[in-house]
């Protein structure tokens, strides 16, 4: 055996980084500042062909200037990059593949570029690693997909290179930690460089270069739902959910998805929810972005705690004024953190509720369409039963104990189950049926050469389906046959629903596995917009006492 310690070098990574940084040194001034004009040259100095590179961005803030700059590098030198990043929502993210700079992609969410992702896979321009959830991808940053170079974004830097990510901290700490502590390189674009930061979110010695971007980073107000667009049908579904699920199980710890159904529910809490006597019994602890439609419920004293994945434009001052509810820093502004919110979402939630484009006859659901590789972001981590969970809450335990077959698997061992709820109208836009025999995800898997059809929520995790026909309590079903019958019973006039047998549906209703609005005592006639605590964005501003400052596109006064 040779003398390994003397022969083998253990610092290849740091030596490589040092060499790259040395060649970039001429662009980096005091405080690690790089002139915007030198950005492309800097990237050419620190990135090598075949590198694993992260561009920060998810469904909200985007390191857009750095993404654009990466597109301008000399592709004879820099090519075949392996992009590992939360999302690819900007055209420039896909331009990298079109331009031959990047080759492989591991991501979680495609957003508006989902169609191009599918097309590029087919054309061989993009080699897909995998579609992940956020947490899954973050996990791999610390295992087998660690970025060599990360291009991140922040609101402000100070003269030393400390960063303020504030309201939209989101993914930044996770990316920086994975990259920097594996001897990688972190480059930040900031909106401005100032003398003093409100607070330090990322310390300067984790950052290698700071660039003042020519224009502020793009930020999408993705979680703002205009109450004016909530329909009577969504209100009916919301009433069913509140009475038949929130109230029935007394669910305290909840994530609300992005859709209009959950907006409707949020706006019904101070009215219908109050009437049902649910205040204090449900919705006390929430994992969600600062949805403006939560304002009336917060102001009415429903909510104890909200932790956020990211920020939401216009909610800055409102959140600052409600530190009892939100997680805020010493400076008073929100600190969001996607990794921690997703961790809470995976392990500590009692219920996930959201919508989808399709549910198959077994209860598998997906938002994937045949020609778009969209991914699901964080939904699958929240829309599943976390098997590692070991603490108990009443609603979790009740949902688990209602499973008639639990003892066939676990004997006499008690166990809970997360409530995973899909609320949908039986037909979507253009009269497209939501309940289908086979998900379009199968076709997508074939078109894009994926190993698995992209499923957002698997049927065995789904516990409740809510439609205008009523609620199917799938957790109360003994087997797949019963689950399919319960799904049929609430699938309305879709082909799946038309296969329902009246006597079977009757038996399910008698057994409490299916409940119609009438069974639940929900008056359909009351499902009108008058029931909403706020009917417009203007109403939300009024509820907030003028603290909510909606983005321009939501202002109609």
């Amino acid at each position, binding site marked *: 055996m040779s003398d390994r310690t003397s022969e083998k070098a253990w610092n290849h990574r740091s030596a490589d980084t040092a060499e790259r940084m040395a060649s970039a040194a001429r662009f980096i001034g005091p405080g690690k500042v790089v002139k915007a004009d030198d950005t492309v040259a800097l990237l050419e100095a620190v990135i090598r062909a075949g590198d694993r590179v992260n561009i920060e961005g998810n469904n909200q803030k985007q390191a857009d200037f750095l993404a654009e700059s990466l597109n301008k590098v000399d592709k004879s030198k820099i090519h075949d990059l392996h992009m590992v990043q939360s999302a690819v929502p900007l055209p420039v993210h896909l331009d990298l593949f079109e331009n031959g700079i990047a080759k492989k992609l591991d991501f979680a969410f495609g957003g508006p570029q989902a169609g191009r992702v599918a097309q590029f896979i087919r054309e061989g321009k993009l080699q897909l690693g995998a579609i992940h959830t956020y947490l899954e991808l973050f996990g791999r940053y610390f295992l087998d997909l660690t970025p060599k170079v990360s291009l991140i974004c922040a609101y402000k830097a100070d003269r030393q290179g400390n960063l303020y990510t504030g309201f939209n901290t989101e993914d930044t700490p996770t990316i920086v930690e994975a990259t920097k502590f594996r001897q990688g390189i972190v480059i930040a674009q900031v909106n401005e460089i100032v003398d003093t930061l409100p607070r330090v979110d990322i310390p300067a010695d984790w950052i290698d270069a700071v660039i003042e971007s020519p224009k502020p980073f793009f930020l999408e107000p993705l979680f703002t739902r205009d109450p*004016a667009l909530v329909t009577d049908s969504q209100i009916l579904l919301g009433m069913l959910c509140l009475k038949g699920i929130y109230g029935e199980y007394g669910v305290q710890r909840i994530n609300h998805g992005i859709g209009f159904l959950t907006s409707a529910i949020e706006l019904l809490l101070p009215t219908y929810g109050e009437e049902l006597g649910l205040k204090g019994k449900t919705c006390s602890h929430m994992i969600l972005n600062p949805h403006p439609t939560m304002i009336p419920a917060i102001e009415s004293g429903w909510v104890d705690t909200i932790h956020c994945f990211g920020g939401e434009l216009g909610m800055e001052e409102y959140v600052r004024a409600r530190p009892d509810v939100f997680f805020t820093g010493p400076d008073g502004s929100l600190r969001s953190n996607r990794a921690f919110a997703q961790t809470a979402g995976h392990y500590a939630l009692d219920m996930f509720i959201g919508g989808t484009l399709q549910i198959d006859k077994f209860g598998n659901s997906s938002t994937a369409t045949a020609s778009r590789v969209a991914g699901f972001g964080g939904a699958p981590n929240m829309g599943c039963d976390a098997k590692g969970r070991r603490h108990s809450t009443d609603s979790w335990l009740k949902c688990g104990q209602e499973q008639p077959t639990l003892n066939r698997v676990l004997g006499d061992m008690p166990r809970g189950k997360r409530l995973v709820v899909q609320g949908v109208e039986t037909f979507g836009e253009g009269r497209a049926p939501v309940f289908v025999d086979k998900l379009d995800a199968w076709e997508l898997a074939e078109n894009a050469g994926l190993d698995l059809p992209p499923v957002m929520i698997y049927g065995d995790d789904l516990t409740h389906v809510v439609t205008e026909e009523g609620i199917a309590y799938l957790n109360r079903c003994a087997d797949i046959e019963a689950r399919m019958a319960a799904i049929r019973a609430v699938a309305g006039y879709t082909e799946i629903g038309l296969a329902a047998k009246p006597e079977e549906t009757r038996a399910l209703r008698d057994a409490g596995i299916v409940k119609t609005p009438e069974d639940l005592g929900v008056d359909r006639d009351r499902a009108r917009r008058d029931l909403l605590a706020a009917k417009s964005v203007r109403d939300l501003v*009024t509820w907030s006492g003028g603290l909510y400052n909606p983005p*321009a596109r939501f*202002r*109609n006064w």
Partner: protein
Amino acid sequence: MPKWNDLQGRSFLESNARDRAVGLVDEGTFTELAGPFDRFYSPHLETLGEAVEFDDGIVTGVGRVGVTPVFVISQEGKFIGGSVGEVGGAKMVNAIRLAIEFHDTLAAAHPDLTDAEKPIVVISFETGGVRLHESNAGLLAHAEVMDQLQKARGKVPVIAVIGSKVGCFGGMGFVAAATDCIVMSEFGRLGLTGPEVIEQEMGKEEFDSGDRALVFRTTGGKHKYIVGDCNYLVADTLGAFHDQIAELATKSLADFEAMRRIGSPEKVAQQLRGVALAAEMQPKDARDVWAHAGNADPVALTDMPLPDFLAQVKRLSV
């Protein structure tokens, strides 16, 4: 039909054309004329294979506010954006014509009528103007409505109310401008060329129609109130609009003449002074005009609750 008392508290913005028509006049007094059961729908849309509506998107009828007979026209924005075609246009024309004929008959029989006892016309606008599917027929309808407004002049006051989602644009913007009095809520918008068309013609840099704050700052009720394009700014309830109409119903023809924006040499001169001011000021934003009118903190006006706004806003005088 919802109860009248409930309608009074309801948002004007949220309401449909029929509920607005019912709620703008006194309880139980509205009678619809050429209503859905008469099935006057558009033959043009039918030919084109486009969805039709039994009232063609315009509710017409007559009711009463206090002792004042009120002829009501109410446009429905949810039906093809409130666009005005041949049938809907004819309904508008004939509602105004009926008001004039009623006035003439009444005045001949009762020469000593008080101002309050004479009929008025109320038009609730929610439209982008001509229904393009009906091109010439729609344009002609606009001209005929204008003709009726001229005939009503000095006899039957015509009040425009604008607080709907679509606002009042296109050819109907001209019609609204030619009425005697305009009542808006802060959610109402009034203009000639719609925001999307301006963007299309002038470019996004000049006018971004997706920037709704900009659109409302330029065409919305508060701006129109400051610059004098609307006479009254009221809360967004049917009751508030109803009460404003009740107050106006007792006014004299001279009072209405004074509220007009166009239609006399004096009014034209005033309009031209406004144009001259704009040329001189070269405002970059509506807020520049608000500041010029004497509002020290124009930014604060936008989100200010209506009572505070009305109490402290300075209106432009030219």
